[in-house]
């Protein structure tokens, strides 16, 4: 019943399982050692299954032996791919991690292909049957895998083009390409006879154009604004001047629409140069907002005036660790246009002191809203 090979692997499975259980009880149930032993048990069990299923790949007749030892009729390129993967892994270890990771992927992909190819070439003496079994096993992996690789390459190259051109040009390029794809799709769908020839002509051409454009764009680098944004870290806290004036960086891409209206604790509005607050659930105006301590709480800011405004929360001051420097604590929304809104989400761990109470204010507008944290 059990083949010689399967007995060996069943033995390994049992031994590693016992070792894993002992390790978990005696050493540590959740560290890497236990995981490795369980992994070994699962791997050995899988191999035992294979050995049982293939009966140790034994042949029972002379014909089978002839088929199994027949030389493959097709040349295999997978050893070369596998070797390329190995070279990339070595190169990656000496250069950058991404080459190493790609090398591992090529090694795994090439190894799987090579293994299945070798098995399929010897499945029978019939070459077409062998090709069929290979396609049956690998078809489900190759097509989605290849599609994913192509999609990643296309997206990467296209993104290089978008990042290298100006914002306006990028929009136009995007619209043109989308229109061309739509038009071609429409033509292919309506003229079935064109499909095969056109696809074999257009797709390689499009990929070639995209590859050239992407490589050229990548070499020329990203547009100046993006380079500056990356260099200056535009959205870093230190760029939040929180004053009346527009910040060169922080206000660059203000999004004046929010979808969080139902989860706010209070609304602060600027209208006719006055600032007032309303607690959620009530229309009456209040001059103090109380928010729970140490709980992420959201306040909605609405600007009804023509001038751009921002909401600032003043959370007192704090001493910078290991220094005599005292810095202001607080944050703010970006500048908000007329009839638009933004939210501030605050998590405040400690209540204010009597000497330095917390408050909300809008630069350039009279009035403050008290912020009480019990």
């Amino acid at each position, binding site marked *: 019943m059990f083949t010689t090979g399967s007995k060996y692997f069943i033995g390994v499975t049992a031994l590693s399982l016992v070792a894993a259980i002992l390790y978990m009880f005696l050493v540590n149930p959740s560290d890497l050692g236990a995981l490795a032993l369980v992994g070994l048990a699962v791997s050995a069990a899988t191999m035992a299954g294979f050995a049982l299923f293939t009966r140790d790949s034994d042949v029972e007749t002379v014909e089978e032996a002839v088929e199994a030892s027949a030389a493959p009729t097709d040349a295999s390129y997978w050893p070369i791919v596998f070797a390329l993967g190995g070279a990339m892994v070595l190169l990656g270890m000496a250069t950058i991690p991404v080459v190493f990771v790609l090398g591992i992927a090529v090694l795994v992909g090439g190894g799987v292909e090579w293994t299945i190819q070798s098995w399929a070439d010897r499945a029978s003496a019939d070459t077409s049957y062998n090709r069929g079994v290979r396609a049956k096993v690998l078809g489900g992996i190759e097509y989605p895998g290849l599609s994913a690789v192509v999609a990643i390459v296309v997206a990467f190259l296209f993104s290089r083009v978008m990042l290298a051109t100006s914002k306006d040009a990028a929009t136009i390029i995007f619209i043109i390409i989308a229109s061309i794809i739509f038009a071609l799709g429409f033509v292919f769908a309506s003229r079935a006879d064109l499909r095969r020839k056109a696809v074999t002509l257009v797709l390689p051409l499009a990929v070639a154009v995209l590859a050239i454009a992407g490589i050229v764009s990548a070499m020329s680098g990203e547009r100046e604004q993006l380079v500056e944004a990356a260099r200056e870290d535009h959205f870093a806290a230190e760029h939040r001047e929180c004053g009346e004036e527009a910040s060169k960086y922080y206000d660059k891409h203000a999004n004046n629409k929010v979808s969080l209206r*139902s*989860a*706010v*604790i209070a609304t602060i509005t600027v209208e006719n140069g006055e600032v007032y607050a309303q*607690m*959620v*659930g*009530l*229309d009456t105006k209040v001059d*103090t*907002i*109380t*928010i*729970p*301590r*140490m*709980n*992420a*709480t*959201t306040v909605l800011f609405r600007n009804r005036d023509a001038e751009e405004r921002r909401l600032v929360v003043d959370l007192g001051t704090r001493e910078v660790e290991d220094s005599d420097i005292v810095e202001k604590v607080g944050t703010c929304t970006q500048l908000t246009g007329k009839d638009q809104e933004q939210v501030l989400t605050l998590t405040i*761990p*400690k*209540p204010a*002191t009597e000497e330095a109470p917390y408050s909300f204010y809008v630069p350039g507008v009279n009035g403050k809203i*008290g912020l*009480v944290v*019990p």
Partner: protein
Amino acid sequence: MDTVSRVKSSRRRIFGTLAPVAAAVTLAGCATNAPQDTFQPDGPNSQMIHDLNMLVFPIAGVVGVLVISLAVYIFWRYKDRGQAIPSQAHGKPVAEIVLTIVPALILSVVGVFTFRTIFDLAETQDTEIIINVTGQQWWWEYDYPVQPELGINQPIVTSGQLVFPAGTKVLLRETSRDVIHSYWIPRLNGKKDAVPGRVHLLRLEADKPGIYAGQCAEFCGLSHANMRMEAVALSKEDFAKWVANQQKAYTPPAAGTIEAEGEAVFIAQCSRCHQVNGLEDSQGKPIISAPDENVYSGAAPNLTALMTRNTFAGAMFDLVTDKCRADVWDASAEEFGERYLQGVTEDCLNQKDLRAWLRNAPEMKPMYADPTLLEPTDGKYRGMPYLALSEDDIDKLVAYLLTLK
């Protein structure tokens, strides 16, 4: 005894056992001393739900009984007795139309009343007092925003018992600091989930002064069943007294007393997490607790005026003895305020549970407070940990806590 008799006897035994159990379960629904009974509304919001229930329940009941009776009859009448398979017919337009229209009509009637009730319950524009309710594992915090018209000139933070004026439209603004909880005082309104990062509104109103029990209604972890709450409705005059007392300045115990020693123990052992407003260190600086550094949810109950409450540990335990508790719970609406405002006196203090809690809190309430299992929470507790207090320290602490009124 023949087989038929044995079967009949066996059926009689089963029926004889099940019938009293079913009767007991059914009769339990008639209990009047049931603090979490949705069939005994004590406020306009719960009354609205009850009125809707009184309409929907009979309709649903009649439909349910009809459907089940019909199904049982058909199972019995047409069960396989070896008879020939009857002729098969398909399609009966009149029956199909009737069976579509009748449920649609029933649902329309139920829908009209249900939607009207939902909108009425969501009304908030006539709110008279706002209270923030924050859930965390496994207790509720209540903070009263500044509302000068009610005499609340500084925020009041309490826990365990929600205190509010009777006959007043209270708007609860619910949220959570950790996982989803659900606030439910059955006699006053339906449930409302408290969700981290969101503010959900729930209206409460009690017809008369009294105390109303509740229970977290959303599974929220190990001690979900112990996450209770009590809503205390006081007359407007009594509520004003309660507010004034909560805002009263802190009076430190006289030097040299056991209470003063208890204050020192509290500062050393408890003030890292528990806030007592007005408490100062030896240099005269206010002591601000830092539960955000020690507790996973970032909060621990504020113990200012602790002894004005009747419960502790997420309302799982009473701060008062059974007798004193009964005095408050059983008081008439007229006497209730006076008894409740007495707070916890030395005679009434539930020394047994409070001391046991101080001795080893995790033993009293499951709270993931084992220091060896705090890796997933970066060393922060999900409840009060074991503090290894000596009996001497516990004596001092109890004496000190009794002064927090």
